[in-house]
């Protein structure tokens, strides 16, 4: 039933020279397609039209390059071909009364000086424009992540759905709606002005960190694809630092790299969770730690430390200790104090409480945690109860520990964390 129209596919017919060109086109697709796409959106003023233009440009490359040779500047060729094809498509559709939904679109740039092929700033700016648009604060959070992964990273809808344990039609709908929103709200395709930058950048960083954490909490689903998601977030982080080396972008990349360095050590082969103090530190990836630590220093030197840089600094202090017992807890408490000033949150307070327990003993830490819980905050946060349970256990207050572990267990759905808490409960009973 699958009768692909072979006559329209000349490349398939003339192997093997064509095979070499096809391989070259595929390579260029991997390295350049997202750049070409980002520029086409600017030139055409529309995501869908740009996607069609991109598709048509690569199709044309497959047809023409075997005969004409690969152009000297493939990216420029693809951009101008993609734009030409898209404009042609628009004209053709206009003839067939498809115009209703095209009227609102900005007219595809007649501005020939829009100079698609020139290397350097403008092209890289297009990638930044794409990132900022996909992470626009007016889009729902889930749509931002889906759109960023598809349009910036080039993942397919199905891959995103698998990674987020969602049905593909749900993800597809989010993407379609987000694009409609971008069009209807006429969101400008631009890198925000300096004054607007911190808030807009924050939205971008949140998306990247969310993608990273989704892949890092290897708790449910196919852990392999989830790890890929963290890799994708790190790639995005690197791209952002390359395009816009703001201290917080650097801080986030550092934080992700240092966390990623522990991936292999944080679960047993059976998939059980291993806490930081019990991890085999020889299994940490020291190359990532070195890179992350250097980035932390760069971020901290660049000005007043932001929340990501501070979290990265805390991760770096942990990473520096050759054994858990050698951790500089005083420095970690100090960094949490700074983090609390910058970004007051009960979760940060909780982590500070745990650090204080390590510096000053479990009773001091428990006092901090109980203060938070007594305020009525974090009552449904399983890690608060798990931390309380752990400190009670260390203080020999086993009955209280049991209650807190049971509460934590009732609140967590993550399989690895559940097994960990169940183990602790069993140890208490023994």
């Amino acid at each position, binding site marked *: *039933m*699958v*009768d*692909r*129209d072979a006559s*329209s*596919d000349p490349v398939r017919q003339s192997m093997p020279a064509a095979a070499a060109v096809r391989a070259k086109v595929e390579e260029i697709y991997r390295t350049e397609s997202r750049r070409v796409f980002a520029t086409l959106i600017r030139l055409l003023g529309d995501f*869908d039209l740009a*996607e*069609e233009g991109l*598709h*048509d440009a690569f*199709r044309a490359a497959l047809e023409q390059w075997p005969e004409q040779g690969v152009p000297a500047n493939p990216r420029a060729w693809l951009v101008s071909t993609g734009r030409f094809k898209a404009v042609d*498509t628009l004209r*053709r559709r206009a003839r*067939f009364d*498809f115009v209703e939904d095209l009227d609102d679109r900005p007219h595809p740039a007649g501005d020939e000086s829009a100079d698609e092929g020139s290397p350097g700033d403008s092209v890289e700016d297009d990638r930044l424009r794409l990132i900022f648009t996909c992470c626009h604060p007016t889009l729902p959070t889930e749509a931002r992540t889906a759109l960023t992964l*598809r349009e910036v990273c080039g993942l*397919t*809808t*199905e*891959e995103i759905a698998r990674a987020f344990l969602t049905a*593909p*039609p749900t*993800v*597809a709908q989010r*993407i*379609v709606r987000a694009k409609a929103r971008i069009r209807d709200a006429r969101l400008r395709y631009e890198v925000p002005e300096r004054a607007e930058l911190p808030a807009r950048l924050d939205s971008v960083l949140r998306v990247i960190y969310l993608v990273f954490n989704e892949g890092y909490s290897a708790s449910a689903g196919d852990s392999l694809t989830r790890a890929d998601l963290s890799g994708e977030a790190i790639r995005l982080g690197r791209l952002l630092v390359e395009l816009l080396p703001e201290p917080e972008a650097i801080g986030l990349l550092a934080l992700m790299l240092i966390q990623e360095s522990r991936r292999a050590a944080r679960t047993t082969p059976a998939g059980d969770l291993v806490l930081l103090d019990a991890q085999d530190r020889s299994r940490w990836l020291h190359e990532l730690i070195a890179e992350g630590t250097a980035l932390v220093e760069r971020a901290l030197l660049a000005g007043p430390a932001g929340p990501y840089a501070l979290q990265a600094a805390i991760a770096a202090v942990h990473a520096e200790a050759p054994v858990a017992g050698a951790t500089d807890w005083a420095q970690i408490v100090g960094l949490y104090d700074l983090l609390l000033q910058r970004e007051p949150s009960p979760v940060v307070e909780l982590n500070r409480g745990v650090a204080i327990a390590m510096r000053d003993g479990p009773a001091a830490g428990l006092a901090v945690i109980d203060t938070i819980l007594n305020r009525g905050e974090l009552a449904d946060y399983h890690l608060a109860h798990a931390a309380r349970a752990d400190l009670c256990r260390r203080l020999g207050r086993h009955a209280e520990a049991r209650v807190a572990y049971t509460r934590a267990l009732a609140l967590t759905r993550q399989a690895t964390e559940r097994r960990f808490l169940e183990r602790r409960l069993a140890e208490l009973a023994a």
Partner: protein
Amino acid sequence: MKYLCLICAEKVMEQMPRPDADKHFEEYREFTDAVRKSGHYLGCNRLLPPDAASTVRVRDGRISVTDGPWVETKEQLGGYYLIEARDLNEAIQVAARIPGARFGCVEVRPVAEDAQTLQALGFDTQEAAA
């Protein structure tokens, strides 16, 4: 990946006034030409109206045939496109341009390409990848 786009509408060509049907055919010619050129096209067909349908069942080794489609809904299956697309969103984008989408609706269904299906249907993996 392959997707089947099922076109459903309240009226099929035979039930439209002649000039409307002519215009609609022309739109389909244009669309089909475009998806052939873009490389999305794998196959398509238009179906005769549901009153031409026979529904076949075999129960206890006996064939039974009834007139008409197996479901009675206002919208009837009028035709399909089998397309190749990078992912579901690209398939949706193509499906949105099927002329029938503006009158009825188009159901986009991914084609199962798991190993067991491919083997059962006699497609080797090579063919499926192509």
